[in-house]
């Protein structure tokens, strides 16, 4: 089972906190990879919030191709960040890990966000395609105020490898996932957390309804719904589809992935809509076992479970800092000075939502709508 450690805070913090939390949850071999998605960046990125950041890995040749392509599109490199890697036994270093901050092409500068988002998505997908066959370019995200770092190896060793201990890299929301050893054919595109146009998610568990969900998403006609090297990537895309494409409020994400029985729907004040959604979005129903931790563009973080099999998941913290972890010991590591009796272990109907800035935690119950 993958380990999940998400932290949302009203102050900048280092991803080391997430990795330390992952470490407390470690059981057995855990070297299939680690992924970090940082949102609301601090440090050297604090002044660059409106500029898209391209995160990924490339070879020397890949970097040349990448630069050429970005230049052709009119993106101007504004700032390039790269971790100060150091050799760590067991980790095979790649040529160039990067987070490159760009200026939009001139013609896009005054365009609405929607158009910019489409441009960023298409660019990321084109780069992915350019480097897919020889793995010369791997890109994880291309979006303002989002940085993604992924590599194969034990999370703690990767922390050392990337030199995160001494790095000023900080953010207010960080999702971290350590992959367990069920993934023997390791592909970095299969590594959580996943990100698309402001929405990020990570999941533990296996998705038994993966194929119909994948087919449904891929047939939406939206270019970003592809990849699916991991069966968990669909959770991120369902979130994007529900909230961004359909424009539904966040809580309906729960209704989409784990629809209620008709007798339960009948008791909801919005029963008419809930039934329509259940029918129209039937192929997006998951069957678990899954615990999903995610954030939305406004900085809301949440945790939901599948309806039956329930992977472990706990939310706790203090006002201004909350952890969303796959195990409670992760919370002890991140927010030790909290009232443990207030920790939340979401069950089948719950959606634990933490408002932007870690202001407040609420539990939305699906039965009550």
């Amino acid at each position, binding site marked *: 089972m993958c380990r999940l450690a998400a932290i949302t805070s009203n102050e900048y913090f280092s991803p080391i906190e997430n990795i330390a939390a992952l470490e407390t949850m470690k059981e057995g071999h855990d070297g299939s990879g680690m992924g970090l998605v940082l949102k609301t960046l601090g440090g050297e990125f604090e002044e660059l919030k409106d500029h898209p950041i391209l995160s990924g890995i490339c070879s020397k040749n890949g970097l040349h191709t990448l630069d050429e392509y970005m230049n052709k599109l009119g993106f101007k490199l504004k700032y390039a960040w790269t971790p100060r890697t150091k050799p760590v036994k067991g980790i095979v270093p790649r040529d160039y890990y990067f987070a490159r901050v760009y200026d939009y092409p001139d013609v896009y500068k005054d365009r609405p966000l929607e158009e910019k988002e489409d441009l960023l998505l298409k660019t990321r997908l084109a780069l992915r395609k350019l480097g897919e066959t020889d793995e010369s370019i791997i890109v994880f995200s291309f979006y303002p105020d989002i940085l993604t770092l992924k590599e194969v190896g034990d999370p703690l060793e990767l922390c050392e490898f990337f030199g995160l201990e001494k790095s000023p890299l900080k953010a207010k929301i960080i999702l971290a996932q350590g992959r367990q050893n*069920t993934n023997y054919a390791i592909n970095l595109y299969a590594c959580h957390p996943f990100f698309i146009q402001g929405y990020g998610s990570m999941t533990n*568990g*296996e998705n*038994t*309804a*993966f*194929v*119909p969900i994948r*087919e*449904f998403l891929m*047939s*939406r*006609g939206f270019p970003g719904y592809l990849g699916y090297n991991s069966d968990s990537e669909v959770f991120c895309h369902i979130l994007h589809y529900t909230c961004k*494409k*359909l*424009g*539904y*409020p966040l809580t*309906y994400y729960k209704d989409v992935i*784990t*629809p209620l*029985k*008709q007798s339960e729907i009948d008791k909801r*004040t*919005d029963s*008419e*809509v809930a039934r*329509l*959604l259940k*029918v*129209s*979005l*039937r*192929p997006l*129903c*998951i*069957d*678990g*076992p899954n615990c999903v931790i995610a954030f939305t563009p406004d900085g809301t973080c949440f945790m939901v479970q599948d*309806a*039956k*099999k329930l992977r472990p998941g706990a939310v706790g913290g203090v006002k201004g800092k909350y952890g969303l972890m796959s195990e409670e010991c992760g919370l002890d590591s991140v927010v030790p000075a909290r009232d443990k009796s207030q920790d939340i272990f979401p069950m089948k109907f719950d959606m634990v939502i933490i408002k932007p800035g870690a202001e407040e935690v609420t539990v939305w119950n699906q039965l009550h*709508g």
Partner: protein
Amino acid sequence: MEPASRLDHNHELSIKDFPYIVRWRDDRCKRCGRCTAVCPMLSIEPAVVVKRVVQSEGLTPEPKAVRYTTTMVKQTTNIERYCIGCGTCTLVCPNEAIEPEYNPRHKFNFHKNKGGHPYRRGGRRNDPMPSTLDRLRFTRISMLTDPALDAGRHEFRIRTYLGRILPAEELPVIMVNGKLEVDKTSGKFIPPVREIYPVMIGSMSIGALSPTMWEGLAMGITYLNEVEGMPVVMCSGEGGMPHRLLKSRFLKYFIPQIASGYFGWDEIVRALPHMIEDPCAIEIKYGQGAKPGDGGLLMAHKVLKLISEIRGVPMGVDLPSPPTHQTQYSIEESVAKMIQSMSMAWGFRVPVYPKISGTRTAKAVLNNLVRNPYAAGLSIDGEDGGTGAAYNVSMDTMGHPIASNIRDCYHDLVAQGKQNELPLIASGGIGKKGNLAANAAALFMLGASAVSIGKYIMQAAAGCFGDEMNRCNVCNLGKCPRGITTQDPKLYRRLDPDVVAERVVEVYKSLDIELKKIFAPMGRSTELPIGMSDGIGTDDHAIAERLHISYVC
């Protein structure tokens, strides 16, 4: 001198030309006559023969030939009265003295065309080999990485939708105070959608079925709905429905079918103002898997009083439905006229879908329906489907297997992103080998939203003798020895509708458990695993490749 033809019987058939040879045991038979009385084909008859026996009665052997006259049960070689192997004789025999035995070397098909009339029969395609569906296995088992569910303890939702489903993008919803509401001012038509059990009872008419059989099925599904909470629905078949049922609250469990003969629809239309419930749906029959290209056929001897009343026709006349709806000249017109007018008849509150026979051109029909906002689904009937009457050549050689037909159509919908908008209903050979749950589950995973059964429920609920070795299969003659497909009161009184209803309930309850036993280890319980093709595999490479599923060995 006797003519040679009388002596050598040269133009007669021999018993070995027949598909079933009646094994009668002289030593066990007590000459009660039950077998000959009950034989639906009059294939066996009492006969008087002279026997010659060599016997010895004294203390020392003194063999001598004795001739005596005795009775026996004799099988006829008249092909019009061929033994159909139904085994009703065995059923009634008190001494196990008689039994038909299949003759694999028969030449029946060479001779069953007397008077230039090709062989007509009921039943399904005579192919006893396992179908593609029976070659599929459920190979994705949840264990450690994904805990299996408990079929006996967890809650399963084995339901599906019948009706046109709007894509989420087109739903008339608006946000009010952070919640979604249906926008009543939008004027957007939301097509009716029924939540039903995904295994339906397919179209078998009153007429094709006896009154007792149809009543048994109807009672069975009503019990399932009202007592067991299982929304099983049943299609009427062509030929209308009893008046009382049309005006009852139970109509919602039925799908009246309109076919090319429009039989029974005068009565249905007349009953419209008196209906207190809408039917579940309306099925428009364009084709049937067992006899593609043929319309329905009810032979004159089955058109008795009840049938003539329901169908609004005179008694004792053949009722052939045309191969196609005569008022239509193109699929566009079919869709426009039939689906929309049927929808309109019930105020657009009832889903209306067509049924076609399995065919390579199914995708063309599908794509037309996809573009019609009133089409509520597409039912495809594969070549292994059954019928009450058809030409043998149609049944055995025409049509398309259901598995690849459904798979292709599902893939076509996926390519258009409409896999959840137009439900596909699969039928034809489901449960042919008795594996109802497995066949149904496999079809769901290939892309069907629901399946329909006909022959299986006749076999399971009423003990239909018919099989793929051409056993019985005289549904067309009205001589059904079980009383299932006959209008002869002497025969249909044999069938107790209460027993049929009880069996329908038993079949569905056990089916439900078996489906759970399939879905539980695969980790699926919340929604029907439609299109979950990673769950199935087959040991046949060609099938795997054709259906885009895994090859396992």
